[in-house]
């Protein structure tokens, strides 16, 4: 049995013109080395990997570079604007990323400050408007604020990516109420981005009805990144399936799983 036949009824995820069978988006930062990253990406089953845009180091003889470890037949590149704190910087970085990657996808981040790395709403909205206007397929990192999420959808982003918790914090989904409000009102895919610490965090996000999850540190800095990548893949499939399967309601008291009738005659009966 393979997983593709195990999930016969699920539809592919569409983001702009791209379609994905895997709903996991994985970053390429912070791995012990690029070989581990390559194996972890494979284990994760992802079809889309984020990359950062940074100055080439001049005068340094070029060794192997990141892209030598990323099979572009297998993975779609998703350049990010990480490290940008203004709309203008993010737009410039996005343009460079598109030119370098020959891809229209961009993970837009306009950050508010260095302590929280949470997005700046005003800058994010401004940059999103510009990039949508320039034809980018914008996957937009944002807080878990349902109002900002809606504004971004109105601007035409291809996917809204609310933070579950601060980047790299590993705290999981801090405010499931907000995330599920965003999902319930969404007109584009919602991909939970940032904050995932372990597999159950991914499952929880998908069970809320998220269309996908993006993560990086949770895999890259785990003691065993490859095993954790496998865990994240399975958790993403588990959470998606559980969402589609329709879970039982919660009850405060018990409900027997074995028949309550037909027991043998008990002492005293």
């Amino acid at each position, binding site marked *: 049995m393979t997983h593709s036949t195990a999930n016969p009824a699920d539809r592919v995820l569409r983001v702009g013109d791209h379609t994905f069978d895997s709903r996991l988006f994985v970053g390429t*930062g912070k791995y012990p080395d690029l070989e581990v990253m390559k194996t972890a990406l494979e284990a994760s089953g992802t079809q889309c990997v984020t990359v950062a845009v940074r100055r*080439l180091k001049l005068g340094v003889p070029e060794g192997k570079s990141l892209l030598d470890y990323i099979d572009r037949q297998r993975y779609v590149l998703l350049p990010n604007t990480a490290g940008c704190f203004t709309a203008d910087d993010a737009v410039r970085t996005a343009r460079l990323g598109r030119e*370098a990657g020959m891809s229209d996808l961009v993970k837009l981040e306009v950050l508010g400050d260095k302590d929280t790395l949470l997005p700046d709403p005003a800058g994010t909205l401004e940059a999103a408007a510009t990039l949508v206007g320039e034809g980018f397929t914008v996957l937009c990192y944002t807080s878990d604020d349902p109002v900002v999420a809606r504004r971004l959808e109105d601007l035409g982003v291809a996917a809204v990516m609310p933070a579950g918790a601060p980047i790299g914090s590993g705290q999981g989904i801090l405010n499931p109420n907000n995330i599920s409000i965003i999902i319930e009102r969404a007109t584009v895919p919602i991909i939970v981005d940032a904050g995932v610490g372990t597999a159950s965090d991914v499952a929880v996000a998908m069970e809320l009805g998220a269309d996908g999850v993006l993560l*990086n540190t949770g895999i890259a800095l785990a003691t065993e990144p490859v095993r954790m990548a496998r865990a994240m893949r399975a958790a993403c499939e588990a959470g998606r399936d559980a969402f589609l399967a329709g879970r039982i309601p919660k009850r405060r008291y018990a409900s027997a799983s074995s028949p309550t009738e037909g027991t043998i005659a008990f002492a005293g009966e």
Partner: protein
Amino acid sequence: MTLTVNGEATTVPTPSNVEDLLRRLRIDARQVAVERNRTLVRKTDYAATLLVAGDVLEIVSFVGGG
């Protein structure tokens, strides 16, 4: 003439275009992107883009990130 490339002062012959600059810096043009004075230079425009003293160039590539 002197340019600023990735934040560092860099001297190149006059005239030079972006293609010349990349070749001089031994950079494989396929994996990078270039910005001149805060404006993107498309790959197809490298040869046609003449550099001017004082130009600020950014040459970037992809690194690991999330």
